[in-house]
């Protein structure tokens, strides 16, 4: 039996809107993933430290405050430094279209804008974690 997929759900920045983060954390758990939720207001350093300690396959970042273009680049930079650049990084929240190519260029794997179903995200994770495990 394959190892369970390990996911870190994180809320970087100051916004306290955790409805989405908590729903996706629960949906991941219901799908059989191991989920660690960081709680609110994590600095990029805290997010990356948690990802390292928990040895996760996936980091799901939820940002609704508009600070994603400051927080995500910093997190990606720290992940590279820690040689965690094979971890899938998913970003959800209020992310305008025009920021998507910039985030992807930084190495963010996928962006989920409002309205995506949890089932689609779970399916995406299953497909892409498998790919990553094969190649690494």
């Amino acid at each position, binding site marked *: 039996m394959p190892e369970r997929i390990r996911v870190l759900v994180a809320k970087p*920045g*100051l*916004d*306290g*809107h*955790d*409805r989405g983060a*908590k*729903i996706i954390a*629960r*949906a991941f758990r219901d799908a059989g993933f191991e989920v660690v*939720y960081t*709680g*609110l*207001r994590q*600095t990029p350093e805290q997010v990356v430290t948690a990802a390292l300690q928990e040895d996760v396959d996936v980091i799901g970042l939820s940002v609704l*405050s*508009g*600070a*994603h*273009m*400051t*927080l995500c680049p910093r997190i990606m930079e720290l992940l590279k430094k820690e040689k965690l650049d094979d971890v899938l990084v998913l970003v959800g929240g*209020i992310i*305008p279209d025009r920021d998507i190519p910039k985030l992807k260029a930084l190495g963010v794997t996928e962006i989920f*804008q*409002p*309205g995506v*179903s*949890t*089932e689609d995200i779970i399916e995406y994770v299953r497909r892409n974690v498998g790919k990553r495990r094969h190649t690494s």
Partner: protein
Amino acid sequence: MAQDVRERVFTTISGVPIEEVYAPASIADLDYTRDLGNPGQPPYTRGIHDSMYRGKLWTMRQFSGFGTAEETNQRYRYLLEHGQTGLSVAFHLPTLMGYDSDHPMSAGEVGKCGVAIDSLADMEALFDGIPLDKISTSMTTNAPATILWSMYLVVAEKQGASWELLRGTIQNDILKEYIAEKTYIFPPRPSMKLIVDTLEFSMKHLPQWNPISISGYHIREAGSTALQELAFTLYDGIEYVEWAKRAGLDVDDFAPRLSFFFNAHNDFFEEIAKYRAARKVWYQVMTGRFKCRNPRSAAMRFHTQTAGCSLTAQQPYNNVVRVAIQALAAVMGGTQSLHTNALDESLALPTEHSARLALRTQQILAHETGIANTPDPLGGSYFLERLTLDMERGCWEYFERLDAMGGMVAAIEQGFPQREIQDAAYTYQKAVEHREKIIVGLNDFVSDEESGLDILHIDESVAERQIAKTRQVRETRDNGSCRTTLEALRKAAASGSVNVMPFVLDCVRSYATLGEICDTLREIYGIYEEPAF
């Protein structure tokens, strides 16, 4: 004639089952005088004024703020010129969390979700050219409410406006922060002390001010049902009254100034029932539980905002329709003031154009539809009255559970309201994903059309300008007097027995920054970290 039905079970958006038909027998337990009363008469189910909007329309109050104080000041002047009748300040997240714009935690957040206010200098710019004794202002601030309110009061002082004439509201509702919105700083108990201080201060000095807006809006946005929004909000109200009474305040001195704030979601009748039940239950709480003598203590006044969480990023023009219907429910429910969301708010803060359209929506409702001609026009509907009675009953059931837990602070510490809301949010999400609830443009009637909307972008130069301004304030003020006022505040907070408001006012007058004042209070009160539920 019997016919097939579209669905097996019909439910409200909150999952409450709805019968096929409502008739006189559905409300056989309703007594007009006891349960409804005429508008303006107890228990105020039908409204708190006898003529309602015939006397005065609701206040059209659009929540706004972004970038620097100077930019937001321009938007306020624009909205006032276009017929808005009250201001409502949105602060950016660092301000709400008690950080100055140059704090490391503020990186990327400056001016994004609201206006950046670090010191009195920013508040002066925010209201430049706006006479504070002529308008009413609502400020959405909770954990640092004493500080932002003090800044407003000092600006008024400098304009020569008497505090007695000031009209407005500070949200100042910390309980719903722990429950739902999560912009808390200090732990619950010292936070409650700060709120009691503001109640006492406003009673003495600002007779026309609402020192608290007890809010269900954020509870609903976090995913609660309509009933949970109602029950937790009113119970928060009970908790504030209990704490104020324990501090020695007389209910009738402050209760007339308590105000409420509800959400207006998509389920039209359920929402109207919620507002009607809210007034009735609050009347019963104030007269029964708290034995108030002043009739105004038991007459609930509330603000409403349409549901941000109901807006879709897909086909955003559909949001205009959603907002209009939600606003209609709020007016049918007898709201005192209203914010209508802009169509682009699931993507960004509104542009000037979308903000104006949102305001126009209210003006059309008020002036073209005839709904303001008579109070509670849906009163007497078998369906609505049944929903209202059921909403009330559900509310009392939640009150019993919360009483048994030892009140709301204790319930929060046990994670009860938080878990109830999380469960409701998850259930709703699943219902949407399984298409048991249809959202047009999202899980049905989907199209690939591009929105083509121009959305508002806040660039990083805002942060640079704001940080430069705050550093200049720190360099040019009298730092000696600033330190003295902060030290006096520290002692007052540590004593736990004196009202901190006069001390916060002195800090503000000396241009101490919001971050410095909050740090002083953090030192005494500590900070709150949410336990895992």
